[in-house]
Each structure stands twice: as structure tokens, then as C-alpha cells.
């Protein structure tokens, strides 16, 4: 074998190996999807969306209270997290000096990597202990802490893409800076900002660990913010580790619904993202 053929053989071998790596990575994805669709598909029905879980051993039941609870938690967390993220980003891109902005940016990136169970513990120390009880409010705070760095970083990226000339044009017309920022800069970046918000919501919709000792979960309906509240990811967790087949079926159905919602959200995010580029 000549030197050249050996090099070519090595090249072909390595390319095959890389292709094999890519293929291996996709195997679990396919397996997980097949199982979610097959097991979940046979368990999702109207009851699933309208009823609360049935006691162990009884067939049927659904996750209606968990879905409502999750929606409430996500809504509250967004109320807390989105303004902080967006206006924090406005500071970084429109006002901040370069050094302090770098520090805050770095802190946000580090915060985004903090395990989600830690935000649950912090919300526990801040709200559950003083209020002497698990509550929807504490769950929402834990989720908001996860949202803030995501919204902040994506919004800032989008604001940076708005041309300076647009801001200058507005300022030259005598519009104050704050109104320019709201009506010109943020509005131009709206699609991108929405993308970031949708991605953040998709992220927290599936979060379980931060809710374990904040929202705690609830077998029944509850709309009160100071009481424990049901959440879909918590129900999926509890049913998955239970020994009952009926509850396993509910967990698979929950997984199918959750994944569908999340992919819907990221598709919508992509749609907005693309609209921005054009």
C-alpha cells in the first residue's frame, strides 16, 4: 500500500466514523419519539384534557388540573421574568458602559447554567419558609429565575441588530431616548424578542425540579396562589415512578401533550425568527 492510498483509506475510515457518531446520536431521539407517540397516542383522549387524575388502580382520568396549573405557573413566571429580562437587556444594549455590561452578561450566562433544582431551593428559602407553606407563587418565582437570563440574552442579541441610524433618526426628530427605545428600537426587534420569549416559555414548561418543593403539586383543582398547585411535569414524574400501569399510561399521555406543546412553541419561535431575518 502506498503512502497516498493509506492516507486516503484513513480519510475514508474517519469520515465513516464521524457519520457513525452522527447516526448514533440520533438513535435515542427516534426511540424516545416512537415510545412517546405509541404509548401516549393510545392514552390521550378527551378525558385526559377534562378530568383530574383518578385514584391508583382506577382506569381513566386525566391531567386537566395539571395543565391549568402549569398554565397559571407559566403565566405568573412570565409576568415576573419577561419585564426583567427585556428591560435588563435594554440597559445592556442601550445604556450600559462596556465593562459593567460585560459583567452582567457574564453573570447572566453563568446564571443560565445554574441547575434548575437550585432555583427551587432559593424560592423555597425566599417564599415557602416565610409564608409557612408551599405555594403556586413560590413555583412561579423559581420558574421566573430560570426565564430571566434566557430572555435577557436573546433580547440583547436582537437589540444589537437594530441599526444605530434608526435610533438616530428618531432622536433627531426630537423623540426622547426612552420613547425611541420603546417605540423604535424595541419595536424593530419585536419578532426576535418574541422568539426569545417563546423559547424561554418552552424551556420552563417542562421544568420539574424547581417545582418539587415550591408548587409541590396537588391532586385536585386549585387556583389559589398561596396554595400548592398541580403542574403537568410534576404529575408526569409522580406517575412515572408509581407502580401502577394506569398511571404510567397517564404519564405517557402527559409526555406526548407536553412535547407537542413545546415543539409547537419552538416552531412558532422559528417562524418569528425567520420573519425577522427577511
Amino acid at each position: 500500500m502506498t503512502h497516498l492510498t493509506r492516507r486516503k483509506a484513513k480519510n475514508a475510515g474517519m469520515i465513516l466514523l464521524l457519520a457513525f457518531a452522527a447516526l448514533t446520536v440520533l438513535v435515542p431521539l427516534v426511540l424516545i419519539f416512537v415510545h412517546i407517540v405509541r404509548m401516549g397516542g393510545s392514552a390521550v383522549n378527551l378525558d385526559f384534557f377534562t378530568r383530574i387524575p383518578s385514584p391508583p388502580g382506577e382506569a381513566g382520568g386525566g391531567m386537566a388540573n395539571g395543565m391549568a396549573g402549569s398554565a397559571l405557573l407559566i403565566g405568573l413566571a412570565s409576568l415576573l421574568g419577561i419585564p426583567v429580562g427585556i428591560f435588563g437587556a435594554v440597559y445592556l444594549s442601550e445604556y450600559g458602559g462596556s465593562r459593567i455590561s460585560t459583567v452582567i452578561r457574564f453573570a447572566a450566562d453563568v446564571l443560565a447554567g445554574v441547575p434548575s433544582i437550585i432555583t427551587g431551593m432559593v424560592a423555597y428559602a425566599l417564599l415557602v419558609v416565610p409564608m409557612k407553606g408551599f405555594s403556586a407563587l413560590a413555583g412561579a418565582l423559581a420558574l421566573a429565575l430560570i426565564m430571566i437570563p434566557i430572555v435577557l440574552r436573546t433580547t440583547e442579541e436582537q437589540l444589537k441588530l437594530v441599526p444605530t441610524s434608526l435610533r438616530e433618526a428618531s432622536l433627531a426628530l426630537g423623540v426622547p431616548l426612552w420613547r425611541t427605545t420603546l417605540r423604535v428600537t424595541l419595536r424593530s426587534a419585536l419578532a426576535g424578542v418574541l422568539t426569545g420569549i417563546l423559547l424561554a416559555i418552552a424551556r420552563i414548561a417542562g421544568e420539574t425540579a424547581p417545582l418539587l418543593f415550591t408548587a409541590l403539586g396537588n391532586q385536585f383543582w386549585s387556583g389559589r396562589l398561596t396554595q400548592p398547585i398541580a403542574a403537568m411535569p410534576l404529575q408526569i414524574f409522580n406517575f412515572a415512578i408509581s407502580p401502577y400501569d394506569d398511571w404510567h399510561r397517564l404519564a405517557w399521555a402527559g409526555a406526548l401533550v407536553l412535547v407537542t406543546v413545546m415543539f409547537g412553541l419552538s416552531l412558532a419561535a422559528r417562524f418569528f425568527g425567520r420573519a425577522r431575518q427577511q
Partner: protein
Amino acid sequence: MASDEYEFGGAVPTEAESHSWKMEKGVSGDFIFKGVTVLFAFSILAILLLMVVEMARVSLPAIEKYGWRFVIGREWDAVQGNFGALAYIWGSVVSSVLALLLATPLSVGTALFITEIAPKKVGGVIASLVELLAAIPSVIYGLWGVLVMAPWLQRTIEPFLNDHLGFLPFFQGAPYGVSMLAAVFILMIMVVPIITSITKEVLLTVPRSQKEAAIALGATRWEMIRMAVLPYGKSGILGAVILGLGRAVGETMAVTMVIGNTPQISLSLLAPAYTMPSVIANEFAEATSQLHTSALMEIGLILLAVTLLINALAQLLLWSVTRKRKGGGRP
């Protein structure tokens, strides 16, 4: 906003508005608006500080009572009030490191395949599939892990390892399904998409000219990867791997569901184990005493310190790469 009906580029400004500059000596809209943004931006720093302070405050009783014995003690007995976290630390370290060892070659290989080998369209499809994997919530990995993967491991892989490699301490004992091995596999599946997508971003910053130079010198595609792409991207790839490590160390739900939750230090991968986030997830809501809560919070504090360090290091490495502008396609 005071006058919501005011549209930029719309109606002629009213008298009051056209003279609004006169008011800027006093408390102007700009001042208030900037104040709000400053407040929110600095709240990021406040949140980080608050996290550390609050967790340190709650874990103080355990820190005072046990000192260093907390991290070297093996006994965890909530009834007797004996708390040593070594078994959890062991479980976290072993599961994360092994998962990373498996995930790194797979991820870097996949990222290289996407950016350097595959036709653009195929690469794009694989990249979006990998992103889908990253978007699946942890609890769903856990559901699949405990109901599908662990029983499968118990039937096939674990008996196989035990039969053929059972003379090694790593593969001894009865196959339970839920085990350290299951945790390693599920963590590997979960960190691969993260490392892959970040490595891909890093590889895209390799200047086209570098790659063209290698090709022009007669290098094969693999030689180009080895000589031009990997050396250029190595600190960024390291950053991606470290970020994956941070994710693996903090991963809670999926691991809790498949690792078996038994606080023991065993060399065998077939034995159940326990990790730091798992014990918090399982015991925190039902902690029996103040000391128990405090001990769990101290585990959380250790976890926070470790992940802060890991993430800071990873971000520094990644920033050093992505700050350089985009390189551009392949030759």
C-alpha cells in the same frame, strides 16, 4: 407611558409635547426609564448574590455542626441526625464524568460531520434534530429511562456485562436495571445535544482560509480537520465539554428516576447509586428536622458552587472563541 396615543411618525406633536424638552431639567421620562433598566439589569447580579447568601444562611447549622466531616462522612441518617454527603458526591462525580467520557467523542464527531462532511442540507437536518433532542424536558427523558431503557438494560446489557466482564469490580452484582449504568446512559443522551450544538457553533468560527490552506497543501478532508479545524477550535470545544459537565452535574429529574436512589459507594456500575441533586429532589420537601433541611441545603450550596465554577470556566473559554467573528463555510 403618559401618552399612549402618540405614534412615532404619526400626528403632529401637540404644544405640550413639542416643548417637552424644557421639562428635562426635572425628573424626565428618560431618567425614570433608565432607572428601571438599571434596576432590572443589576437584578441579575442581585439574584446570583441572593442565591449564594440565602443558601449559605439556611445551610449554616449543618456547616457549623459538621464542618469538613460533612463532605467525607458516608453516613446519612435523618432519624439519628447524622449527615455525611460523600455517597452523593461520589455518585454525582462518577455519573457525570463517565457520561462526559462517552458523550464527548460522539458530540464532537457529530459536530464535525455536520459542519465539515455532510452536504449542507443533510447537516442542517441533523442539526435541527439535535436541537429537538435538547428541547425535550428532563422529566420525559426520565419517563423513557425508567419505563423503557432501564428494563431493557436489565434484560440485555447488564447480564451481558456481568457474564463476560464480571471478573472486573465494575460489573459485579445482580442486574437491577435502575443503576449507575442507567444514569450514565441517560446523562450521556442528555448532554450530547448541548455539546454538539455548541461545538458546531465553535467549528463555524474556523476561518475558511485555514481550511483552504490545508486542502491546497494536498491534505485529505480528515487531515484538514486534524490540522486546521481541531487545533483552531480546541479551546471552544473544551468550553462546550465543560458546559456539558455542568449540565450533567446539575441534572436532576432523569437521573433521580433511573439511578435507584441508594446512598452507597460501589465500584460496580450495575449497582444503584445516588447523586446530590437526586437526594435534594427526594428528601427536601419532606425533611424531618431543621438540621435535615440544613444538610440538604448544604448539598445544594456545594452543587451551586461547583456549577458556578464550571460555568464561569466554560463561558470564559467560549467567549474567547465566539468573540472572534464568524469564519464561514467549508472550502
